[in-house]
């Protein structure tokens, strides 16, 4: 089968890969780049566990053909912390119990980042809308919303 070449920048690093053209971005991230922080929950674009930011927008990477990532800039959960320093959203999730089993957490934090990039001062309702594409079965969402709200506050301080 013919392999296709793609290039993209992921978490600030350039990649040049040869892939089978039917593979998804999620498969390439997890299997080729070995970045397993991005999860596969439903594989049908419903649960949001596989969310990454591509070209400034949140996408469900299980639905994105990897070929579409060609020339794009991508951020995964592994790209948020700055060395040992967590991103304020990550800090807030730890501090405010924004996660339990942790399986939805990567996608949830990615959606939160995408929201706060667009809207640094969201209302609670806007936060809920911002994560409406992410299922969480453990928390009942309350502490996730609180975490994102706290992160927005922290980030206003310039952190």
């Amino acid at each position: 089968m013919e392999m296709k070449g793609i290039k993209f920048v992921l978490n600030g690093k350039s990649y040049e890969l040869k892939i089978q053209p039917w593979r998804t971005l999620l498969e390439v991230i997890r299997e080729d780049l070995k970045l397993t922080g991005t999860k596969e929950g439903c594989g049908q674009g419903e649960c949001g566990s596989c969310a990454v930011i591509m070209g400034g927008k949140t996408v469900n990477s299980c639905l994105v053909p990897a070929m579409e990532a060609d020339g794009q800039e991508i951020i995964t959960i592994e790209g948020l912390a700055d060395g040992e320093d967590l991103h304020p959203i990550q800090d807030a999730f730890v501090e405010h119990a924004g996660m339990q089993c942790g399986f939805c957490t990567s996608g949830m934090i990615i959606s939160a980042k995408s929201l706060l990039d667009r809207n640094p001062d969201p209302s609670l309702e806007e936060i809920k809308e911002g994560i409406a594409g992410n299922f969480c079965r453990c928390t009942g969402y309350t502490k996730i919303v609180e975490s994102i709200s706290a992160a927005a506050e922290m980030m206003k301080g310039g952190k």
Partner: protein
Amino acid sequence: MEEFSIIGKRIPRVDGRAKVTGEAKYAADYDMPGMLWCKIARSPYAHAKILNIDTSRAERLRGVKGVLTGKDFKGWKWGWMPKTREEEPLATHKVRYLAEAVAAVAAVDEDTAEEATQLIQVEYEELPGVFDPEEAMKEDAPQLYDHVKNNISWDFHMDFGDVEKGFREADLVHEDRFVTGRVTHGYLEPPAAVAYYDSSGITIWAAKQSPYFVYRHLAACFGLPLNKVRVIQAFIGGGFGGTKNDSLAGDFCSVMLSKMTGKPVKFVYNMEEELMTCRRRHNMIVYNKMGMKKDGTITAMHSRVIADGGAHTAIGPLTMYLTGCMSTLPYKLPNFKHDAYRIYTNNPISAAMRGHGVTHTRFAAEIQMEMMAEELGIDPVAIRLKNAIIAPHETINKATVLSCGLSEGLKTLADTPNWKERDNKKADEGHISHGVGISGTAYLGGARQRGHQSCAAIVRLCEDGTVDYLTGATDCGQGSDTVLVQIIAEELGLMVEDVDIKRVDTAVTPCDAGSYGSRVTVLAGQAAQKAAIDVKEQLAKFAAGKWEVSPDNIVFKNRQVYVKDAPEMAMPFDKLAKIACYSGTGAVIMGKGYSEYGLEVYDFDKGLGNCGTSYSFTSQLSEVDVDIETGFVKCTDMVIAHDCGRPLNPINVEAQNQGAAVQGMGQALYEQFVMEHGETLNPNLADYKMPLSLDVPNIEVVDIITDDPNGPYGAKEASEGAIVSSPPSIVSAVHDATGIWFKEQPLTPEKIFRVLEQKKGAHE
């Protein structure tokens, strides 16, 4: 009350950092050199004889390294009890539910494995199926197992006091039929494992909520001693009592395929496989009869439960037990009869789920009690306070309750503006009708199954003053690792960061019954406390020797060790650790302990005795907006007054209550598998409606402190109570809004709309 340093504090989770950075590895994240992929071939029939399986085409496919059928397991079966061992890793002669596993393949990659499963040719003779438990009980119904008449997978009966006398003494007797829905656990991580078989035995990195179940199953299946089975715990993406609390085809097949090929073998179920074939909650029909005096006193109850068990028994006997033994709580019940039937059908297998067994019968009894109170003109709070037990209390089936915060919880709810001002919100809001409902429920903590019950702990002191902690108890998301570390830190006067909890590994960690029935904090917690005290006592001797005082006077606090009432005799904890480890020829300090509360083993056949170590009580208020034009219900607010004895980590207790209440809300309002002849028509998260962020109400959690003597620092259950209290409080709120008692979950817009239309029609 003694002042704690770590217990009772809002300590962030010890696994928080690993989870927010994506570093935490779940079973599907493991990858090994030379690893093969396992896929399962499944039956297209819900009930059929297997006449022949031809695997030759699959074997010839390039990249295929091994193919298995049921025969490779040589007739081995597993089950929850010796007499219910009926489930095969792969069906050999008969399939009993749609998509039951019949063969498995290992191949060099996932796509090849998938392709190979489609080349396996199975010849079936389709049999008539039965999909409704009440139909399946009839004489002429198709039988799933030749030796089981009327498809009774399990039955359980209780008879205490004299119900007939109780009904005669009652002023009002009600008989109603209640139905609970077909719901799923809904964890986002589908089952997965990587297995490796070599001369040292089995090693499996698996997504298991209770890893010591699969440890025993694999040993039995492969004829290995237990010390040759190593289950290594990955991070777990949620469990809630389902398939990860048992074994499944993928576990056995990946191990067998590794044995055949000499390679590591991985499987990951997809979400459709999870939702179509994995364990789900029993859906039940509860025929409930209750007697009540004019003043609201309950005189008797008789429940007849019919549960759709699906194709195999699994943990069903315990489910049936819990539907009855917990019915004598939280209200005084002098006469009680219970007849529970778990029925085989050609549906997927029903098993445990958060709120196990209790949620069904409590829903029925709670709603019926309130319906009767309404008829007698008794207020919802008053009827509950009238009947609420007060600790200490012994139920008629000899469950002993040593602490109970139910009345305090109900009074707390009655005192909220949500309740006191509930009639004000009834003002005309167009097509939205507002309602408020309450419930008062009980749940067990420290569940005690038959046989092995205990949890254990090993605490190892490192010479630099840090501590390693080994437990067999699994944190599948509920936060128990954090609470257990808090306990060790509290006892040794250390900080949470000084204690490292190791991941469960059956080759290393002490055996544990499992993470179900809200047992971890209560039982593993007590074990942790004992092991830490053991270390403390060993260390205290070294300190006492140095200062020439009694070891009893040595205090451990804030990383310091000092003599009580003589604080000038003090040293840092790490210094004492060095003194101990390097004194003389040196000491190696290890503490150990296991849980033991001295409760008698209960009588599983009669429903007599304590199925839990302690009992929690949850009072819940829910508010709803019902759109009377569409029937859609939006739950707007919840107040949960939960008696967990004492919250050891309040933020975690809040989080557990919120999560459980929302899961209960999903069950009450939206969620259900749509079934047709054994086929799950909505095996995906788009059509199976779990709550999303926008569906969630404002939730306030109030801790009712009761300090149970049978729990570490007074703690009881905190993870399941609110999934029991949530549905009745919501159903009660919908009644308040519409004047209609719905007895069948879920309360979908369609159901509500139809009844409202009928009601309107009747008025016109």
